[in-house]
């Protein structure tokens, strides 16, 4: 066996020593979990509940309690003095956030209960008002452009590099970021994907240096980068690179519950103003299940993160070697780093190019689930992505590799005729907010070439818009949408659920 689920005692001893090293930079005692401790005490006090939620510790909904477990329902509580309040944290949530800031190397942190989506929007809306410019790569997640629709900021897109062979967008070149800044000296901030969904990083330190030299703030979308803060040998994280804010989707690779995230801030940002901005849109009944999961995920990462991500990288590198040995697939990795738009690679990501085998990524994605009971993160036109963490088991990695080997044997074919164009850099004719709120007409999608789009169109996942409000629709883009639809991608965004009509600016 190459892979091991358990380490023998000597190795475990070594990694425990390493863990202590990894928290050496922390000022606070990362063993603590203040919110978790407060919630346990609250349970021990057997408080009589005459507040919401109405299921009253689960007694009011037996089926739900049976399904999720009594403990989950009992801990689904509301803000109260001993448990603090996310809108205005003064005690245990404040302490938990301070510990998180300490663990992530940030000056301040805020717990988020609307995912990294909420954190990305909070970053943008904290630094941009209506009419302000923000520099960002076009291959951002829809949450970033959504924020522009809401707050009326104007995007200045830096086109990402493209790897033609794989058909995927890459990172931004620092000199192109600088050019955008010089051409838009009034821009407020630069937003950087660290990394992209596919695990690709830009030269973040260089971009931070350039942006700060010109007086701009740097915001990192680290929805897929929580592990950069705790693992070794991974690309640099936003706070370490000197960024001003970062949105870490702790639920994705950090072990907290789905929908929980942390917004990180350097000392260049006023956290109380950011909290006010968040409170414009965030629920006043933040889930304690989500918040306590952040508290415990932070504790676990601070104490054991290094070991957890070492195992993650070991699994991912093993899977890459085995998948590449099958032939036909290309599980790409650090060998593609070019010091430019593919500056660094997140080796925990298992991104596999499938087109040389004659199958679209989305087809492999569907076969894995329908035929082999294996659910991966996403498949697009040319690639699949499997999320690997230290929570995986060696035998499951073997199943994935073996299933891919079978898919090649049973379904592989000539790649002739497969669409070979993935990412298309669009032309922006109007700011997103202006286009979204403009007078619009609904046209059959095939008659929209040449018009300005009034809504989003994207495959979900990965959720990077093919079209965003304000962008010029072209024949190429329509062909791409038709092909993605035919191959079975899940298209989202438009008002028309079947994506047969598009809303365009009149």
């Amino acid at each position, binding site marked *: 066996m190459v892979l*091991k*689920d358990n380490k023998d005692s000597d190795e475990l001893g070594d990694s425990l020593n390493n863990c202590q090293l990894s928290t050496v930079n922390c000022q606070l005692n990362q063993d603590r979990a203040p919110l978790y401790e407060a919630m346990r005490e609250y349970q021990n006090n057997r408080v009589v509940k005459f507040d919401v939620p109405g299921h009253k510790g689960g007694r009011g909904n037996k089926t739900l309690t049976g399904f999720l477990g009594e403990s989950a329902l009992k801990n689904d509580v509301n803000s109260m003095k001993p448990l603090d309040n996310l809108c205005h944290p003064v005690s245990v949530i404040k302490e938990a956030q301070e510990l998180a800031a300490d663990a992530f190397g940030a000056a301040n942190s805020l717990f988020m209960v609307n995912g990294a989506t909420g954190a990305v929007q909070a970053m943008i809306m904290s630094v941009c008002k209506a009419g302000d410019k923000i520099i960002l790569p076009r291959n951002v997640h829809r949450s970033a452009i959504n924020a522009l629709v809401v707050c009326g900021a104007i995007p200045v897109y830096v086109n990402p590099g493209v790897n033609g062979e794989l058909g995927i967008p890459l990172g931004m070149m620092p000199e192109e970021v600088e050019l955008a800044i010089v051409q838009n000296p009034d821009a407020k901030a630069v937003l950087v994907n660290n990394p992209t969904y596919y695990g690709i990083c830009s030269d973040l330190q260089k971009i931070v240096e350039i942006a700060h030299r010109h007086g701009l703030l740097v915001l990192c979308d680290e929805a897929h980068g929580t592990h950069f803060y705790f693992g070794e040998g991974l690309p640099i994280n936003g706070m370490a690179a000197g960024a001003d804010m970062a949105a870490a989707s702790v639920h994705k690779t950090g072990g907290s519950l789905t929908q929980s995230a942390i917004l990180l801030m350097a000392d260049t940002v006023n956290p109380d103003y950011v909290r006010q901005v968040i409170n414009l849109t965030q629920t006043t009944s933040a889930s304690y299940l989500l918040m306590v999961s952040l508290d415990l995920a932070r504790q676990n990462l601070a104490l054991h993160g290094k070991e957890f991500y070492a195992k993650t990288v070991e699994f991912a590198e093993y899977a890459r070697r085995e998948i590449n040995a099958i032939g036909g697939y290309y599980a790409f990795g650090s060998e593609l780093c070019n010091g430019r738009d593919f500056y660094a690679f997140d080796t925990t990501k298992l991104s596999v190019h499938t087109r040389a085998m004659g199958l679209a990524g989305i087809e492999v994605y569907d076969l894995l689930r329908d035929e*082999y009971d294996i659910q991966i993160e996403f498949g697009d036109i040319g690639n699949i992505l499997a999320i690997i963490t230290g929570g995986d088991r*060696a*035998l499951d990695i073997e199943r994935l590799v*073996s299933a891919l*080997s*079978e898919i090649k044997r049973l379904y592989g074919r000539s790649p002739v005729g497969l669409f070979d164009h993935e990412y298309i850099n669009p032309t922006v004719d109007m700011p997103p907010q202006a286009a979204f709120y403009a007078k619009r007409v609904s046209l059959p999608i095939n008659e929209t070439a040449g018009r300005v789009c009034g809504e989003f169109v994207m495959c979900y996942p990965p959720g990077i818009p093919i079209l965003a409000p304000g962008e010029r629709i072209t024949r190429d883009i329509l062909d791409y949408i038709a092909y993605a639809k035919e191959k079975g991608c899940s298209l989202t965004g438009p008002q028309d659920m079947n994506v047969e009509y598009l809303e365009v600016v009149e």
Partner: protein
Amino acid sequence: MELWFTENHTDSVRFSIKIKRHLVSEQSEFQKIDILDSEELGRILVLDGFLMLTEKDEYIYHEMITHVPMSVNPEIKRVLVIGGGDGGAVRELCRFKSIEHIDLVEIDRRVVELCREYLPFTACSLDDPRVHIHYEDGLKFVRRAENEYDLIIVDSTDPFGPGEGLFTKEFYGNCYKALNDTGILVNQHESTFYDEYAQAMKRAHERIKSFFPIALVYQTHIPTYPSGQWLFGFASKKFHPVKDQNAEWWLSQGLKTKYYNQYVHSGCFALPNNVRDVLAGRV
């Protein structure tokens, strides 16, 4: 003082054996390994709390998983055994002089080492020069083989825990690829008597059937397994287990067996309705 080993056959059905001595209790990298000595059934191997074999009745399982395919194709030379670290299947195979090469793939080295020490009645042929032991994941091993084997025997644990990869569609597909064009696949196939085993058995059978032109099930009775009624799968690219039975050849080998014979061979493929109904999806 009395010491009893109890296995839960279901949540509400138990099977207990009075124990003389608890010889081994060890957590390996993959599972909990226990070896017990009992008054009535002799030595007993237990993995993760599930009884794998007893000295008293292991011969039934090991004869039935090997002699049935061997009697169908006398040309079997290269055999792959996946699981079966106790050595029982290998012991039976080594009795056939016609076999030239046996690969035994067992994920857990400690199972083999402990069986060598405490269960010599099954592990006795592991040092035969034809036997090559690989401590590796079975799914991984078979993935790399193509057109190499005349016979694959899947001597697995249940479809949960370390053995779960050996009940998957990708595993059976990889086995098909690893077999040559006369290849035979025999697998431990659970039982239909209790519902939780029946579902696993049915899914496994459907998956095997999707790859092999011939896919049948045969049964035996193993007194110490849940319900006592146990099944094996016989899948093949060419040979029919009953029509192509070569009893003359098997008899000519002069092997003395305690359970298997040429009559049991054809009889074991005659399935009772409680198995036929599950296979046909009628229950």
